[in-house]
């Protein structure tokens, strides 16, 4: 079985490009060119150079000794939190800004939930001197205030999305509408492995540097390229796609995807798409989607803005449907505890998104000599307010 995208843009039955005709020229232009451009030597050279000198790659693969002792297994953390701007998101925005330039685009739009993708986009726009407009749900603007300030300082315009649930889904709707309104000069830098083909594949390829490095680093540390498990949180699924990418077709590597259960999978306030979703169409992609019986998209909930999305990328929908991936959902409370625990045990304050992935060790047992790599997708600076309020740390 192949877990990657096929030539029609599908992962199994998921994916495709369900877009209005207004977007067709842009998406088609991208589809026809992205692989060609990515294969160009000059592109690869510039991309790799920026990842190294600007982002700070390779990020370390860190053996978390105290965490491993506590859970009686071997836990490695892939330190995407040490990327410039504080999360894996920048791997994708570097790639896409280079793509946009080669396509001759001068205006960049993006959506953001936690603000990490918005910051990563604003950053590369500053780097390249391009205009940047970031759409962000009104609720997320409040709960991720530090990132809003960062985007503004970087010269981006932050536009509040006031429709629907006022979170990531609605910010994405607004970005798509903007693209419809500005079809010629604008490139839309989608922040995850979602959206119409070729976005899920393109973003996964840019993020695949994560597992490319894990293979080399694990070989040095453990004498083998393959861990027993690779674990990542899934909002749209980009950090997970990057961490899984080079292991997708290696059945000996277990793939674990961690979704946000919010206040509990059956509480009505959750973002656990694999548990609650059915096949549907969101933002141009056929995938698993939280929706009513009537096909209306429902409003998800998670304490973490980056996981607060009612869908999941088509690659992950296929990993779930095919049984290749093991899907676990983690509540707000368990995630917050895991975030605190990592801070105390390892001196690393993770993003709340990432805390969801770390929380699985409480319930998902591993063998003593299992090698488990957790993608530490981001740092918790942006979440300090939420952590402080939650734990009454004032």
């Amino acid at each position: 079985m192949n877990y990657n995208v096929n030539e029609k843009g599908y992962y199994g039955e998921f994916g495709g490009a369900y877009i209005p005709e207004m977007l067709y020229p842009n998406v088609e232009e991208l589809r026809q060119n992205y692989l060609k451009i990515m294969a160009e030597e000059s592109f690869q050279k510039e991309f790799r150079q920026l990842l190294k000198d600007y982002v700070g790659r390779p990020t370390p693969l860190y053996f978390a000794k105290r965490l491993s002792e506590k859970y009686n297994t071997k836990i490695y953390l892939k330190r995407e939190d040490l990327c410039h701007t504080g999360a894996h998101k920048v791997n994708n925005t570097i790639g896409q800004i280079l793509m946009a330039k080669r396509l001759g685009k001068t205006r960049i739009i993006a959506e953001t939930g936690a603000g990490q993708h918005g910051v990563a986009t604003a950053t590369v726009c500053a780097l390249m001197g391009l205009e940047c407009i970031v759409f962000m749900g009104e609720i997320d603007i409040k709960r991720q205030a530090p990132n809003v300030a960062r985007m503004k300082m970087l010269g981006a315009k932050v536009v509040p999305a006031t429709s629907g649930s006022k979170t990531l889904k609605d910010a994405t709707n607004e970005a798509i509408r903007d693209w419809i309104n500005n079809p010629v000069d604008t490139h839309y830098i989608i922040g995850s492995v979602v959206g119409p083909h070729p976005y899920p594949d393109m973003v996964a390829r840019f993020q695949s540097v994560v597992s490319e490095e894990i293979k080399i680093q694990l070989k040095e540390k453990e004498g083998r390229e393959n861990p027993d498990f690779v674990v990542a949180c899934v909002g749209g699924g980009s950090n997970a796609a990057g961490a899984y990418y080079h292991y997708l077709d290696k059945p000996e590597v277990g793939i674990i995807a961690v979704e946000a259960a919010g206040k509990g999978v059956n509480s009505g306030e959750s973002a656990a798409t694999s548990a609650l979703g059915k096949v549907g169409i969101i933002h141009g992609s056929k995938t698993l989607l939280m929706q009513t019986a009537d096909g209306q998209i429902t409003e998800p909930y998670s304490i973490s803005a980056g996981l607060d999305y009612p869908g999941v990328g088509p690659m992950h929908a296929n990993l779930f449907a095919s049984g290749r991936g093991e899907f676990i959902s983690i509540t707000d409370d368990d995630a917050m505890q895991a975030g605190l625990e990592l801070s105390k045990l390892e001196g690393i304050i993770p993003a709340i998104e990432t805390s969801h992935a770390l929380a699985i060790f409480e319930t998902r047992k591993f063998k003593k000599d299992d090698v488990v790599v957790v993608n530490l997708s981001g740092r918790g600076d942006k979440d300090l307010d939420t952590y402080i309020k939650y734990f009454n740390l004032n």
Partner: protein
Amino acid sequence: MNRIKNKLSENKKILSIYFTAGYPKLDDTVEILQQLEKDGVDMVEIGLPFSDPLADGPTIQQSSQAALKNGMTTELLFQQLKDIRETVSIPLIIMGYFNPMLQFGVENFCKKCAEVGIDGLILPDLPLAEYEEHYEEIFKKYNLINIFLITPQTSEERIRQIDNASEGFIYMVSSASVTGSSEGFGAEQEEYFKRIASMKLSNPLIVGFGINNSETFLQSTKSAKGAIIGSAFIKMLSEKGLGGISTFIKSIR
């Protein structure tokens, strides 16, 4: 023969109205349709509301949200339309996003359309290739015409492809914009309308998006067969209710 094709064969310009089913009030659907026919409207697009209407501006976003809040569903719309052909004879098209149709079941949806007397569908986010590969057969079986969109950015090659795949008419989006912009039409649109007209397509063109008064209606029907008014009609409904329909339609032509 399908009512859409019949209507298009008449020697007149087509005025088509879009409204969101379930808005302003849940049960307004039938009365709005009857009134539109009485006022001489040639064709109607009944909007099936969707939570995330990507191609729509604020007006239709709001009417869709309100309609859903009122309790509109796919099932209910078909119930409301059950006897519509006893009182309304103009062509009726359902316009909506693909996901609600997918959940209802594409075949089931088409079957219901045929039962109540719907003549065609406009599904902006169901792309041509997907339609041809998976759904065309079902649409045809129920005698439903699927309407495709073109925009100022659509390439000539793709327009020809869409023309070949189309029956009835081609929905010509007036400008690079979501629905509801009201900036009027300038030289750019005029050039675009002329350019498309000169392609001598086999299907008639009906212009939509941004038509909000008699001026924009006239501008767009100079070369096209007709025009569709959506957001402006919904705005009127929000302000004046169903009682404002006749005056509004008379102000257009």
